[in-house]
């Protein structure tokens, strides 16, 4: 009995999430095509999509698997730089390729490279727990930032040339330096658009919901709730943890590529510890394992600093105070009890559970 109720509720929440994203897309897209949109908001559409994907994918690691990750921006960075490199090389190497194809290739490349990075960082995950794991992900993010800041990648008729620390790519005539160390990538063609962002958000939601409602998803949540009990009933903890880290990283990589191709220049310092934290804030405020919450929190909190523009220099201060107050309010026992009382369904579920 309990199972069917929960299933139908999950299905409703998933449906609402899809519906919300689709409706938002239709409204925004019609506003964009009729030119009826403020330029500030228009410039933020792609970043909002990218942050939604980041938040949902991080929620898979933090909420569903229950491992704190402080280096999610590292995957975004890997995706951004490899994705843009691929797209630019394609632009120079094969003349006349359609922009959407370059964007697609960039996002797929970003996802693949970020997945490899996720797999690499997933290995220490198997030995570490809790805060020690969090610190490894933090360290990983910093390493990625530091390495990309010193990476030089050029492209000419002979293919790619890589060098570290200083520019030793020695490109042939007509070659292009794509990643220029601390200068990052310049001259990016802005080929990201709202439709691509929308498709990526939908793919992310479909992937994450399918995992959560599958046998693997239940295994992952069992690991989160009680690792030892999960292991003792024969769940392969190693396999599931690596799977989650890889999928989460791949989605973040695609988001990174999408994000980067919305700007003409991109530097590694954009994806630092603060960005990881920003995404973590989306996840926690939206609610752990609550993907609808992540979508709303990511969109709202990306717009909030812009909406607070009237406070000009006080806006980050207001943001910080809002953040603290929301955390204090949502964790207030009296307020919690009140919310639970207003939701009769939840009480029944607890009794059945």
């Amino acid at each position, binding site marked *: 009995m309990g199972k069917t109720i929960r299933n139908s509720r999950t299905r409703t929440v998933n449906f609402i999430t899809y519906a919300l994203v689709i409706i938002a897309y239709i409204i925004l897209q019609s506003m964009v095509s009729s030119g009826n949109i403020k330029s500030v908001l228009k410039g933020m559409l792609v970043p909002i999509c990218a942050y939604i994907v980041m938040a949902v994918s991080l929620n898979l690691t*933090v909420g569903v698997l229950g491992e*704190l990750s402080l280096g999610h921006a590292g995957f975004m960075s890997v995706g951004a730089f490899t994705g843009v490199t691929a797209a630019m090389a394609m632009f120079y190497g094969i003349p006349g390729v359609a922009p959407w194809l370059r964007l697609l290739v960039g996002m797929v490349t970003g996802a693949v490279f970020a997945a490899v990075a996720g797999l690499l960082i997933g290995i*220490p995950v198997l*030995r*570490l*727990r809790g*805060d*020690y794991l*969090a*610190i*490894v992900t*933090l*360290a*990983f993010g*910093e*390493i990625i930032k*530091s*390495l990309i*800041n*010193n990476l030089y990648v050029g492209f000419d008729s002979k293919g790619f040339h890589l060098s*570290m*620390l200083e520019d030793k790519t020695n490109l042939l005539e007509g070659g292009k330096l794509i990643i220029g160390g601390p200068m990052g990538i310049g001259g990016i063609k802005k080929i990201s658009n709202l439709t691509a962002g929308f498709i990526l958000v939908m793919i992310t939601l479909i992937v994450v919901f399918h995992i959560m409602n599958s046998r693997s998803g239940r295994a992952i949540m069992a690991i989160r709730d009680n690792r*030892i009990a999960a292991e003792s009933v024969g769940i392969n903890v190693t396999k599931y943890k690596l799977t989650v880290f890889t999928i989460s990283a791949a989605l973040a990589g695609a988001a990174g590529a999408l994000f980067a191709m919305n700007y003409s220049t991109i530097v590694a310092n954009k994806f630092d*510890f603060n960005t990881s*934290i920003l995404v*973590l*804030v989306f996840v*926690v*405020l939206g609610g*752990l394992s609550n993907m609808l919450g992540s979508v709303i929190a990511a969109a709202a909190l990306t717009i909030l600093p812009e909406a607070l523009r009237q406070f000009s*220099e*006080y806006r*980050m*201060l207001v*943001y*910080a*105070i809002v*953040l*603290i107050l929301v*955390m*204090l309010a*949502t*964790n*207030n*026992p009296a307020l919690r009890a009140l919310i639970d009382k207003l939701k009769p369904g939840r009480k029944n579920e607890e009794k059945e559970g």
Partner: protein
Amino acid sequence: MSFLYFLINGISLGSIYAIIALGYTMVYGISKMLNFAHGDVIMVGAYICFFSLTRFNLPPLVAVAAAMLVCMVLGMTIEKLAYKPLRQATSLAVLITAIGVSYLLQNLALLLFSPNVKVFPSIVGNGKISMGDIVVSHVTIVTIIVCIVIMVGMTLFTGRTKIGKAMRACSEDKAAAQLMGINVDATISVTFIIGSGLAAIAGVLLCSTYPTLVPTTGSMPGIKAFTAAVFGGIGSIPGAFLGGLLLGIIEIFAKAYISTQISDAIVFAVLIIVLLVKPTGLLGKKTREKV
């Protein structure tokens, strides 16, 4: 530029990390939270000391005392207002609140002290002494001495005094400590106060060695010191000392012998490798999982 010179500089930088890491480790030990605002308390301490020295022309020791006092009050206020209501909440909720506090302090500093770079005057002057063929500045030596004094002091404090013992008891088991008549809330407050006072000292020493002061000065040393605390085994005082020193030495050697630009990457890579071999840090306690 000899090996010894780099070693001394490494120990000096490591001493600063160790003092910051000590604050992290004590707070973590007692309240199991990562206090991300700790790095910003360092920055506040440095600013208070800066203004005491330049604006009010106070003598250096008084300026340091003023910085410590302000930071201690700040630490206590943060704990009372932001962390105490969340005692029962999940650790993630507390973490996000700590991040909020960190943003708040940085942006307050931005408004109050302006984003302009302040050149911090060294509290012990710019003198240098030569030992054989190497020249070491006074700041370096003072930093190392201060760190040793603090480490010995804290070890004695937690081992011998009543409050110190109460702190250790609370980090082990809060409920049991309360049953033994220990005032847990007061003990946690004391821990935050001590940690913030140490942060002020670290801020002054940090800015005396690297004299640029901006509202984000504390962030990176904060993160590094946090890694140092984990490196040594979080929750352990000798661990913070060892972790801080090693991190400082590795960083200076990486800068000197490999590359300045990727020294951070090397520091963090060493951290990951150490954690792979010893998953609870160098001196961390192994906790058995109970089923």
